[in-house]
Structures are given as structure tokens and as C-alpha cells.
């Protein structure tokens, strides 16, 4: 076969789409798995620091086994590798009396939805002209909601199939919690669609590049390096960004940001809303009876959901891959890589925030959570939609 022929074949439109999509999926999935294992480590380390402990600081490279004199001190970073190895090599114990089919199915159902959500997240602008989204869907955000809420089935099935009290309670709690929050989660970002005029995450990010991030929609056109050379241009972009409509829109946007953020915490079963797995009340919650890799899948699912949730927050409110002063990928492959880096930095900060909140706040009581969801966020989110509509209709500039 001729090389030119292969290159020609690879650049025919549908083949090109096929192999770039596979490559993007492969790379993004692996990056996510790495981020998940780093997050697990960060969770342990940050929790330790917040509680004035040191956290895992022993595991490193076992060079002494290979004849070296001293193991390098790695601040316990080897823990990231040691944890998965431990979980992979453990006995996969299945207790008697469980419903085998659903018992085995449940962990997969928990893990798959967050990974599917990753498909629509724009994790970069473009690289060599290839868009850095695995699937550029026009219904991107709806897809996220549709898929992300499926993971509750896995949790409920796990609780039911385990044939044990505590997992069962965890499963029930999970489903009621999901019903309380899914609604305000969906309603809270309707103002975003009204302002951006699109459900496509890429287009929402494009809007934010042009008009400023949705949490601070102040600069039009965005900053660029060229602007830096002309102080007047910076001033102009700021002054032009501040209009009455923008200032007024900022209020409903902040409300929807807070509601969305809190709902994502509930969606990913993180403290202060981790009722399904409340360790102190329910032993381990829905995964009490699981061991080894089955348990690890729950773990992976939870942290992948955190990653996907952070990705959604970053894409919707925090400007996605964009950053002031940094051009997008059309200016060269270097900027394309920088944009991917910006996305991951933002997501990491978001994950850090989630961990930080987890080790600060105590758990909500069951009824408090329902009350907050139904009587607090639901009406506020509904009111927020009307507020946005009124501002958009009556305040023109």
C-alpha cells in the first residue's frame, strides 16, 4: 500500500471523523481516569490537611526492591497507583442471598453514565482544526441531564440487590434525593439557554468567549494579546461590556450558578448531600456489600461523576476552555493545547472546591434536604426564569 493512498483514505471526511473521534475518546477517557485517581489521592491529602493530619505520605517507588540504597520520598504519590492495584487484586466476594444479575449489573450502571456525559463536554477549542469535543451535539445539555440521572438506577439496584438493610436504605434515599434535585438542576440553567440562545455546549462557550464568562459577563469580544498593547482597547472592552442589561442579568445568573452548583453536589452524592452512602448512619450505604473491583467501579463512578459535574459547571458558567488573554486553537496548535490545559485546570480547581466543601460541611438531614430541594431551590429557580425573561424583554441594552 502506498503511503499517499493511506493518507488520502484517512482524510476522506467520514474516515477522518471516525478515527479522530476514536482518538479523542481514547485520550479523554484516559485523562479522566488519571484525573480520577489523582482526585482520590487529593481527597485523602486535602482532608488530612484540613484536619491537621499528614495524610498518606509513605508509598513511593520501591527502588530498594531493585537494589537501590534508598527509596525516593514522593509525598505519598505512589498511593495513586497502590490503591487501584489493591482493589484489582482483592477477592471479589459476593455475599449469599443477593440477586446475582442485578448485583453484578449495578456497579456498571453507576460507572457508565458519568463516562457517557464526557462525550459532549468541550475539553478544548480545536487542535489542528479538529474540534476538541467528542460529540458536538445540539442538545448537549439535555443529553447531560438525561444520561447523568441514569446513575441513580445503578445505586437503587445496588441497594435492592444486596439483600441487606443498609444498602436498601441507601438506595431509597438516593432515589428520593434525585427526584428532589433533578428538577431544580434542570430549571436552574434555563436562564443560561435564554441568554446564550443555544443548548449546544460549544455554542454556549463561544458566547462566553465573546461576552465574558457567565458568572461575570463583563467583557465583550474577550481579551486578546493584541489588546494588551493598547491600553485604550482594554478600557474600551470593559466599558463596552457594562450595560444595564448585563448588570441586571448578572443577578439571575448568579442565582442559577449557586443552584446549579448545589444541585451538582447532590447529583454526584457528595457531602453535604451524601445521604445514600452516609458512613456514620448506613455503614457504607448502597455499596456496603460490595468488594474488590465491583466496589472500585462505584468509586470510579462517583469520582467520574464529580469530574463530569465539574466539567458541566465549567462549561456552562466558568467559560469552559476559554481564558482571557489566551486565543483559541485557530491561532495555532500551541494555543489549542493551552486551551485543553485551561479546561483541566478549571476542572481541577472545581474538584478541589468539591473536596474542600466535603470536609467543611456536615451532612444535611433527610427531611432538610427534601425541604431545601422542593421548598427552596425549586421555586427560586422557577422565579429566576421569569426574572431573566423580564430582563431580556424589557431592558434592551
Amino acid at each position, binding site marked *: 500500500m502506498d503511503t499517499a493512498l493511506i493518507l488520502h483514505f484517512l482524510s476522506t471526511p467520514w474516515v477522518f471523523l471516525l478515527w479522530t473521534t476514536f482518538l479523542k475518546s481514547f485520550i479523554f477517557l484516559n485523562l479522566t481516569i488519571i484525573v480520577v485517581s489523582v482526585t482520590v489521592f487529593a481527597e485523602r491529602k486535602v482532608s488530612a*490537611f*484540613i*484536619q*491537621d*493530619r499528614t495524610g498518606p505520605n509513605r508509598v513511593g517507588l520501591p527502588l530498594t526492591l531493585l537494589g537501590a540504597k534508598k527509596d525516593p520520598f514522593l509525598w505519598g504519590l505512589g498511593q495513586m497507583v497502590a490503591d487501584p492495584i489493591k482493589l484489582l487484586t482483592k477477592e471479589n466476594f459476593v455475599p449469599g442471598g443477593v440477586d446475582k444479575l442485578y448485583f453484578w449489573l449495578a456497579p456498571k450502571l453507576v460507572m457508565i453514565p458519568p463516562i457517557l456525559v464526557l462525550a459532549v463536554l468541550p475539553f478544548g477549542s480545536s487542535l489542528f482544526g479538529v474540534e476538541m469535543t467528542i460529540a458536538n451535539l445540539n442538545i448537549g445539555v439535555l443529553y447531560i441531564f438525561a444520561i447523568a440521572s441514569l446513575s441513580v438506577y445503578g445505586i437503587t439496584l445496588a441497594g435492592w440487590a444486596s439483600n441487606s438493610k443498609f444498602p436498601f436504605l441507601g438506595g431509597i434515599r438516593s432515589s428520593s434525593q434525585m427526584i428532589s434535585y433533578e428538577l431544580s438542576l434542570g430549571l436552574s440553567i434555563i436562564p443560561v439557554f435564554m441568554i446564550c440562545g443555544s443548548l449546544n455546549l460549544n455554542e454556549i462557550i463561544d458566547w462566553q468567549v465573546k461576552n465574558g464568562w457567565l458568572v461575570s459577563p463583563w467583557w465583550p469580544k474577550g481579551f486578546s494579546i493584541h489588546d494588551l498593547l493598547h491600553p485604550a482597547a482594554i478600557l474600551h472592552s470593559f466599558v463596552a461590556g457594562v450595560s444595564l442589561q448585563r448588570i441586571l442579568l448578572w443577578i439571575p445568573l448568579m442565582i442559577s450558578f449557586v443552584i446549579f452548583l448545589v444541585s451538582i453536589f447532590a447529583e454526584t452524592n457528595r457531602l453535604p448531600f451524601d445521604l445514600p452512602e452516609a458512613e456514620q448512619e448506613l455503614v457504607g450505604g448502597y455499596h456496603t456489600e460490595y468488594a474488590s473491583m465491583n466496589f472500585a467501579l462505584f468509586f470510579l463512578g462517583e469520582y467520574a461523576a464529580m469530574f463530569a459535574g465539574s466539567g458541566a459547571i465549567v462549561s456552562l458558567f466558568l467559560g469552559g476552555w476559554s481564558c482571557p488573554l489566551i486565543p483559541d486553537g485557530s491561532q495555532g496548535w500551541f494555543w489549542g493545547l493551552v486551551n485543553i490545559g485551561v479546561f483541566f485546570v478549571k476542572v481541577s480547581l472545581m474538584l478541589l472546591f468539591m473536596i*474542600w466543601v466535603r470536609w*467543611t460541611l456536615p451532612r444535611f438531614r433527610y427531611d432538610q434536604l427534601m425541604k431545601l430541594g422542593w421548598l427552596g431551590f425549586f421555586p427560586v429557580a422557577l422565579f429566576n426564569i421569569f426574572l431573566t425573561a423580564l430582563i431580556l424583554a424589557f431592558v434592551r441594552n
Partner: protein
Amino acid sequence: MAIVVERPKLTLAEKFYLPSIIAGLAITWKHLKRAIFNKGIVTMQYPEEKWDANLPEWYRGAPTLVTDEHGREKCVSCQLCEFICPPRAITIKPGEIPENDKWRKVEKRPQEFDIDMARCIYCGLCEEVCPEEAIFLRKDYSITGLNRAEMVHDKETLYKLGGVKSGLTFKWNELK
């Protein structure tokens, strides 16, 4: 009489949770920042750092056998400790002291003295019951072994751990 606890009136800020959440986040952030620079950490790195110097006088560690200042085994193998031991960790095989021995008049000493540390509960009854003040609980607490056999302290180990106890010991006094 029933006591009615007045519910405190919450201000608007308190009802919204958010200000107190931010205050809480500030507190944890302070600790996080401090701990990252290795300040204020209370963790003790166990095998490298130990609390041994701070163990209290009355600490009950591993039971051991002692000799007196003349090198005589204080134990006369009366087997009282063996009988009182609640988890039956002690096994003694008494033996007679031969004619030509310097301590012939003591008549008996243990031929074998095993304490199974996997069974020992560190209750100290053996020390309390011993009429000869021959068995003492010392401050060793980290008793490890790779199998059950290694967890059994034989006579030699017990004397090595116990060492010499010189002079009169007043076993009913607070200080031992």
C-alpha cells in the same frame, strides 16, 4: 415537668446558610493552608517517632520474667500465674533444681515457661498473683510475629525482656 426549649430566632442571613457556609470554608481553608506548609500537624509518624518516653508508670505491657541481683531466677514454678491467667496464655513445665546447684534450697524452677502473646490480654493478674514477685508487666507493647509460633515467648525471651529486678519490690505499693 416538661422543659420547653426555645428555638432561637434566626436572622435572614442565618436562614440562607450561605454566610455560615462561607465562614466554615474560611476556617477549613486556614487549616489547609497551614498544614500544606507543615505547620500545626498533629500526626505522629509512628515507627520513627514514638511515645515511649511518655508511657505512664502504671503502663501494662508484655509480661516478663525477672532475675534478682544475684542472678537467681525468681520464679519457683508454683504455676499460680498459669492457673489464674484468664485467656490461658501461660504454660509452665516445672523442673527440679539439681543437688549441686547453688540455689538447691529453692528446690524448683521452671524448666519451660511459655507465654503465648497472641492470647495474652495484658490484664496483669499474673503479676498480681505471683508470690515470689518473679513476673512483671514491662512496657513493651509492640509484639509482632509472622506466625503463631513466633508469637510465643519462651523462657529465654522472657528473661531477656525482663532483665534484673534488684532489691525488695513492694508489690502493693503504687510505685513498682
